[in-house]
């Protein structure tokens, strides 16, 4: 299994993805590779840049989707494997669920594993999950499940019923103005430089009327708007609906529920859905304040020297 101590470079992987696209000829199974990346130090300047682009406060606490971008190169490496059934170009990120077990801080060294699982039908083709896990000293602190769709023939019957009329957005609603260059900005900090996000011309080449926002940026921005309202441990699960064509003005609803928050992002004028999901807060605290203090103290002392090669 590929075991890395430094993240793979994305550019060669993208070139590989583009060049080898036609070689991925389907198949009914996913590779069982497990990619691991050990003991990653957090670059404070990179963290601050990410926080700024996503609307987070500059802080030592890692936003939950920050860990996603650290694991992202492993996902790309996996999806560009020769045995992977689909070409990476053209895959659609349809959902993401992140569970944060506790606050992860920039002084900690985080290790990642990524694998693919659960190839299954989708009404518009086939879908599978990329499962990522982050650990600190062997303790699972974060897990993520990203669901991707490969459009094509489906064995699952399409729901013929017309799309149900959307209920009005719940609770207090905020307006979010998304600048036209957000795809380039987020691409810069995340490394996800998919051409559909970068420029209108490159997006048009892939059939979009203009550049579209990264789904994971929208998720990060929506969670950032809950600043001060979220505990250290929670699950944030979202489905990405219609792409956000840039620039955009969005209407963001985050409404409090018994067990957390419901999230609902739509076009401010069009009313079209872009993101729907929830934040679920565990009923009982997963750690006592005493444990937390101990964990924070322990982390810097355990810093191990960084290995140089894979």
């Amino acid at each position, binding site marked *: 299994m590929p075991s890395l101590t430094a993240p793979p470079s994305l550019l060669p992987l993208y070139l590989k993805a583009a060049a080898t696209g036609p070689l991925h000829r389907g198949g009914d199974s996913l590779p069982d590779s497990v990619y691991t990346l050990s003991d990653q130090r957090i670059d404070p300047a990179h963290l601050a840049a990410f926080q700024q682009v996503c609307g987070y406060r500059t802080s030592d606490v890692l936003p939950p989707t920050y860990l996603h971008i650290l694991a992202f190169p492993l996902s790309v490496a996996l999806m560009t494997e020769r045995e992977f059934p689909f070409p990476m170009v053209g895959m659609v990120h349809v959902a993401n669920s992140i569970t944060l077990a506790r606050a992860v801080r920039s002084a900690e060294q985080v290790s990642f594993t990524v694998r693919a699982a659960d190839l299954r039908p989708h009404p518009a083709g086939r879908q599978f999950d990329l499962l990522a896990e982050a650990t600190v000293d062997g303790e699972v602190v974060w897990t993520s499940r990203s669901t991707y769709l490969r459009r094509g023939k489906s064995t699952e019957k399409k729901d013929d019923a017309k799309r149900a009329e959307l209920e009005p957005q719940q*609770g*207090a*609603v*905020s*307006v*979010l*103005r998304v600048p036209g260059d957000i795809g380039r900005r987020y691409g810069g900090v995340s490394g996800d430089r998919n051409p559909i996000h970068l420029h209108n011309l490159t997006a048009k080449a892939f059939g979009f009327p203009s550049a579209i926002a990264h789904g994971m940026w929208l998720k990060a921005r929506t969670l950032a*708007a809950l600043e001060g*309202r979220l505990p250290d441990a929670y699950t944030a699960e979202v489905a990405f609906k219609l792409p956000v064509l840039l620039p955009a003005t969005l209407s963001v609803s985050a409404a*409090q529920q018994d067990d957390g928050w419901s999230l609902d992002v739509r076009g401010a004028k069009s009313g079209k859905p872009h993101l729907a999901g929830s934040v679920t807060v565990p009923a009982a605290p997963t750690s006592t304040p005493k444990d937390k203090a101990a964990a924070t103290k322990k982390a810097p002392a355990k810093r191990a020297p960084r290995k140089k090669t894979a």
Partner: protein
Amino acid sequence: MNTRRAAIVGGNRIPFARSNGPYAHASNQDMLTATLDGLVARFGLQNERLGEVAAGAVLKHSRDFNLTRESVLGSRLSAETPAYDVQQACGTGLETTILVANKIELGQIESGVAAGVDTTSDAPIAVNEDLRAVLLEANRAKSVGARLKALAKIRPQQLVPSIPVNSEPRTGMSMGEHQAITTIEWGITREAQDELAAASHQHLAAAYDRGFLDDLITPYLGLSRDQNLRADSSVEKLGKLSPAFGKAFGDEATMTAGNSTPLTDGAAAVLLASDEWAAQHKLPVLAYFVDAETAAVDYVHGDRKEDGLLMAPVYAMPRLLQRNKLSFDDFDFIEIHEAFAGTVLATLNAWEDDDFCRRRLGLDGALGSVDRAKLNVNGSSLAAGHPFAATGGRIVASLAKMLHDNGGGRGLISICAAGGQGVVAILEA
């Protein structure tokens, strides 16, 4: 602890001007200095060392970090008068009054000025955020090479400056857009809003006509009356205006430029003192500051109807009244800042709503009704205009005078502020 009463000696303001009107070239410091000098002239405070001057502005240039102290230094007050800046959005003017009154009550100072100023004409414009990042990086660079490398990141589009926007940072909506939701949620009609707006203009015009404002205002830059005032305002005329806020709600949109306050420039100041200080200086006492309360609502994630951006005074009021064992009937004058006619009417509705008052205010029933004959009897912000931080000083000075002219009584003030905050206070004479 022994406390004493804080007396309101009087006030002074400049007429309020519409944005980009007669005060287009006046800075906050220009207007605040002129207002302080008017107060000095009215009460003979030349070269007087006061306990302090507390003032603030909502829209502020970074160079105005010491706006109030700089204004004091340029005024005819003694240069030995200390000063500090306060900012609580539209609550600033009333909050400074509370601060100065509290110090007088505690015996820490004998006299002080509470003031506020705002300009929407001479607004600060910042450099583009990206350009700012590049310039700061260049500034941090330790070598010429590193500096040039940083400066090479400058791009033409970064020359577009950042102009302050009138919207809440967390919701991206302007105050008017927020209030449009509140207005609809509380079922406030267009007619009721236009009636309130017309009454505001008619009352303020009548107050000018009978000379009520003569010793509250000092003319400035050719203006001797509030520029926004329309003495001939009527429900019919206001009814012809088309909606300005909440247009997304179609037919439900009721807020127009007529029943909303316009962007305004101006300043207002209030002189407070101990009884002893006022007597020594042979100055009158118009009224006393009694008590105040502030509240805040979660307009970002709270209930769309009950936690509206400008609803915080609804929550502050019962706490203030209970602590002072008073009800609306115990007051002779009630001043509710007219950010929008809809704000005043939604506030009144909330206090009359039995279910809401039980659930959200923890009361046994409705807080009560405000007698409209006591409400904003000399007009308020819809007619005068609303230079954010100046509104508190305008209301405190005129209410103190109303109580004095009335031969005594109690007055209540309610002011909503950005950030979902609200300040309420009691005066008596």
